[in-house]
Structures are given as structure tokens and as C-alpha cells.
């Protein structure tokens, strides 16, 4: 399997097929003499912006502290949670519990639900 | 009102930052006389609303005023400035009167003004063409 072609930037879905972002980053563990392993998938936070430029990542972090769900750190999902790698990447998690949907929920509660006809985010 | 004012401002701005060649100005003047004529003809046939026609005539009038101003400031070489000015002023006056006649719902007078405007349009076209060919 080719990591960049087949995993990085792919869409992530949870156990219930709910979209939870894209693979913005991958954490690799490198030992002195042991074979390197991929340990985590990172979603959101400063991770994607870091790929553009560190200065943009710093700006994004500052903005995130001022506004929104105040979540600075990217969401980290251990690799052992990966169920299948195909068209999308399926994770053995519940999207809402991971924090990957913090922004979605924050915008739904603070903005969308307050506009008439927006509906409610909790309804299943 | 505000729309037109702003359009005028933007036209002024556009003309301010790039002075078009006199030949283009002449074409532009003809274009707006033609516009007034076409709008007038449509109104005479009762096919366009009063407000739209009046506004379009006013727009032609204002734009023509702007163009003649610019033209007189830097007239094209070999041009009979007096004749140029007279035909532009005459058509402008007719267009303004047409706009006023719509408000008064005076169709017969409007039609007469429109016919005269057509004649002026032809005269303007001929004199502009001769200016352009001389250049």
C-alpha cells in the first residue's frame, strides 16, 4: 500500500458512515534501529495549515483560540482504529466522541440553529 | 437615483483613469444616441414600461453629456468643433425632452422628437465618419 496515494488526504468515516474530515496528517514513529511505524491519523487543528507554512499554522492556532470550540490540538486517532482503507477510510470510532466534529457541532449550535428553519443538530 | 449616480461616478472614474481615443468617444456618443432612439421606438410601440424607458433615456442623456464634455476638452484633430458640439447638444436636448414627455404621457410629441432624433443621428454619423476617415 502506498501511504500518500492511498491514505493521506482520504475522507474518514466513522462506524455509522458519518463523515469526520480527511486524513490531514500521519504520525510516524521512528526508532533508532526498529522499523518505522505509522501510529496515528491526525484530523484538523493546525495540521493541514502546517503543510502550507508554519506561519499560516500559527495564525490558524491564534484564530482558533479566539473563536469557535477553542480546540487547538488536532484530533488524533490511533492507527489500530482503522477498519478498512478503500474509497474512504473507515474508522472504528464514533465521530462525535473523537472531537473531529467539534467545529460542526459548534457552528450548528451557535449559528445554524438560531436561524429560523435551520433544524436541530441533535435530532437523529 | 442612487444607482444612476453611482453608475455616473463609475463611468467618470473609468473615463478618468483611461482617456479613450477620440474615435472611441465618437463611437460611444453614436452608441448612446442609438440607444435612446431604440428605447424611444420601443416605447412608441407600447412595448416597454414608462419608468424603464425614462431611466434609459436619462442614462443616455447623462452619458452623452459626459462624452461631449470629454470630447470638447480634447477635440479630435481636423474636427469642426462647433458643428460637433451643435449636433451633440441638439441630440442631448431631444433625449431630455423625450424623457420629460414620457412623464407627461405625450405620445404624439414624443414621436415627433424621436423622428428628429433619427435625423440628428444620421447627421452625427456622417460628420463623425468624415472626422474618423480624415484621421
Amino acid at each position: 500500500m502506498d501511504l500518500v496515494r492511498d491514505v493521506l488526504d482520504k475522507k474518514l468515516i466513522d462506524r455509522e458512515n458519518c463523515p469526520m474530515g480527511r486524513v490531514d496528517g500521519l504520525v510516524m514513529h521512528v526508532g533508532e534501529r526498529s522499523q518505522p511505524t505509522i501510529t496515528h491519523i491526525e484530523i484538523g487543528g493546525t495540521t493541514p495549515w502546517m503543510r502550507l507554512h508554519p506561519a499560516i499554522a500559527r495564525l490558524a492556532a491564534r484564530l482558533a483560540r479566539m473563536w469557535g470550540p477553542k480546540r487547538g490540538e488536532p484530533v488524533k486517532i490511533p492507527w489500530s482504529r482503522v477498519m478498512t482503507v478503500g474509497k474512504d477510510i473507515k474508522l472504528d470510532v464514533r465521530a462525535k466522541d473523537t472531537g473531529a466534529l467539534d467545529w460542526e457541532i459548534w457552528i450548528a449550535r451557535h449559528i445554524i440553529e438560531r436561524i429560523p428553519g435551520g433544524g436541530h443538530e441533535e435530532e437523529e | 437615483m442612487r444607482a444612476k449616480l453611482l453608475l455616473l461616478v463609475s463611468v467618470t472614474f473609468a473615463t478618468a483613469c483611461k482617456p479613450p481615443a477620440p474615435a472611441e468617444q465618437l463611437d460611444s456618443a453614436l452608441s448612446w444616441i442609438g440607444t435612446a432612439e431604440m428605447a424611444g421606438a420601443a416605447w412608441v410601440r407600447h412595448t416597454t414600461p414608462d419608468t424603464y424607458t425614462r431611466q434609459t433615456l436619462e442614462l443616455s442623456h447623462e452619458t452623452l453629456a459626459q462624452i461631449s464634455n470629454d470630447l470638447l476638452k480634447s477635440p479630435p484633430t481636423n474636427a469642426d468643433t462647433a458643428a460637433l458640439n451643435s449636433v451633440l447638444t441638439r441630440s442631448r436636448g431631444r433625449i431630455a425632452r423625450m424623457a420629460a414627455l414620457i412623464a407627461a404621457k405625450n405620445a404624439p410629441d414624443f414621436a415627433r422628437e424621436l423622428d428628429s432624433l433619427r435625423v440628428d443621428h444620421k447627421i452625427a454619423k456622417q460628420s463623425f465618419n468624415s472626422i474618423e476617415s480624415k484621421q
Partner: protein
Amino acid sequence: MKKVMEITLGIVTAVGGFLEMGSVATAAQAGAAFGYDLLWAILLGTLCLIFLVEMSGRFSAVSKHTIVDGMRERFGFPFFAIVLIGITVVLFIVLVAELAGIGLSVQILTGIGFPWWAIPVSLAVWFLMWKGTFSLIENGVSVLGLVTICFIVAAVKLHPDWGSAAHGLLPTFPGDQKAKYGFIAVSILGASVSPHLMYFYCSGAIEDKWDESYIPINRVIAGLGMTFGGVLSMGVLIAAALAFRPNGIDVQTFEQTALLMTTALPKWGFFLFAASMLFACLGAALETSLAIAYFFAQGFGWNWSENLAPSKNARFAFTYTVIILLAAVPLLLGIDPFQVTMMSMALTSATLPLAIVPFLFLMNDPIYLGKYRNGWLSNSVVAIVILISFVLAVISIPLEIIGG
């Protein structure tokens, strides 16, 4: 039988949704200034669009991805971010032009200036997005857009000289006003090859759950729909050439364009024009704002669907809400809508490589498309047209700005 219905509906959608502020403004200006000479630009742009739309439908049907999904996955976040910024800026200006088109249509009907309509119009567009479903937007608005067929009726009734019109289908070198000729040609190409149509179309294929069995349907819809659409554009150009050129009218404002059909269809021409522009621009405004929201949502992997309640895809709904409200601001400031339209179309041409080149990579990707990937014909047609519009844009936009 179901397939026949689907094809008919698809073609109706394509035809009703083809014309918008940009294509009418550019075609009218071209006809008024250069007669039939620029018909080739519409032909070339439409040909390219047929291929692009067919390709985007096929991509979605086979890979179950949208173009934006593919772009992010193949080219990574940094490249995606650049395309996102470029496309969003251009689509935003296009959206401003479409909202202005709606406002101006109402203005010529009511006499109240278009800046006054900025807020009501953007609220109305937003409300349709907020409450409407995808099929309402795709089918409902496009069916109303069928009124634009009147442009062809008008063109035919003016008895064009079909022989010289046919000559216009071949590119000619302009005698004078070269800069203007080039700029209008670029704007026409930009108006025809509008990338938002691709994003909208392939997202629609996902929303309608297309699979490989839709490939022939997709081909017919793209081919016939876009051809009819291109003919509508040509109708506008021919009508303008016959209505405006004899009077020496150089179309610079919407008020002038409104006279397009007053001679051909004396009784209804003016109102048909207003109605056509109203529905055409409304459809295009919806499609453009949806395309921007799709771009963000798909690129970042958010939940997106025009069929869900806004709170079920909050970030998606939030994006189009912000975009539509922001687009009202330039209108309130009273920009010159005609200039904005021409510029937005030329900019579209200039940014086409940014949108299309990565798409060509995706269309040749065996992992996404398997045996359904592009042949050399599609690749070359699209590559050549994109190259032509880009080169023309790079030459003529600076000339237009300097004031050629």
C-alpha cells in the same frame, strides 16, 4: 421509460441552466460590436464544455467521488488550498455578477435601482438554498430557465443571413479593435466553459446516486444539453448583431441589453428578456453558491448535501450563507455590474488551467476510473481549448486594463 424521463429532465436542466449573466452579456456585446465574427468562441467554448461535463459526470458515476474529492486526495492539501483560493475568488465574483443580474432584471421591471435589490435578492437566493432541496434547485429553477429559448426565436425572427453566420463559426483575425476583440473572445470562452457547472454537475451525480449504468445517459445529457445551451448563446449573439449593430449601439450596460428583443418580438420582447435574465441569473446564482460550498465541504471532508436540513451539515450551510451575504456587499456599494460580469468571465478563462489541469490528471487515473478513463480525444480537445483560452486571457486582460 425511466431512463427516457431522466434524459429529458437532464437535457431540460442543461438547457434551462445554460444561460446566465455572463453568457448573455458577453454574447450581446460580441454581437453588437463584431457581428457574427465571434460565433467561433461560443462554438469552441461549448465544445470544451460538452467534454468537461461528460467527464465530470463519468468521474462521479464510476469513482463515486466528486472532482474536488479527487483533487484533494491526489494532489494533497497544499495544492488543494491554492486551487480553493483561486476558484473561490473567481466564483465569488461570478456570484456577484449573477446577483447583479437578478437585481437588474427587477430594476428594469420596477424602475427601482439595483443596489436597493441587493439585500432582498441575496436573501431570496439564500432562502432557496436554506429551504430547498437539490432537485428543486436543479429541476425547478431550470424549468423556469427554459424561457431563455425566446432568444433563439428572436434571432430567427430577425432573419439572419445564415451564410455569413456560418462564416463566423470559423475564427477570423480582427481588422481593428484587436484588444477589444480578444477580451470579448476570452470572456465568451470563460462564460461557456464555466467550471462551476462541472462541480455542480458531478456533485449532483453523487446526490442522485449515479453508478456506471448512467454513463450512456450522462453522455446524451452532456452532448445534447450543452449543444442546445450553446445554440441559445449563439441566439443571443445573432439577435444582438441584428438588433444593435445597425444602430451603432455598443452594449455597455444592462439597460441597453434589455432592448435586445424589442424589435424581434415587439409585444413581449422586453418582458421576456427581463424574465429570462431573472430566471437564468437566479439559477446560476444558486449553482455558483452551491459550487463554492461544495468545494469547501468536499475538500475538507465535511458532511454535505443540499437535501439535508442545514443543521445536519452545519459547516456546509454556514459556508453558503456567508458567501451569499458577502456577495451582496459589492452590489450595495454600487459596482458597475456589466464591467464586473465581463471581468469575472475573463478571469474565469485565466484560471481555467488551475481548475482543469488537475481534473485531466484525475480523468486519466486508472485507480479512480479503471477502463472508463479518458481517451486521447477528450484529453486533447480539453487541453487545446484550455490552452487557447489561457493564452488569450493572459494577452488580453492586461490590454483591457491598460485601456487598449
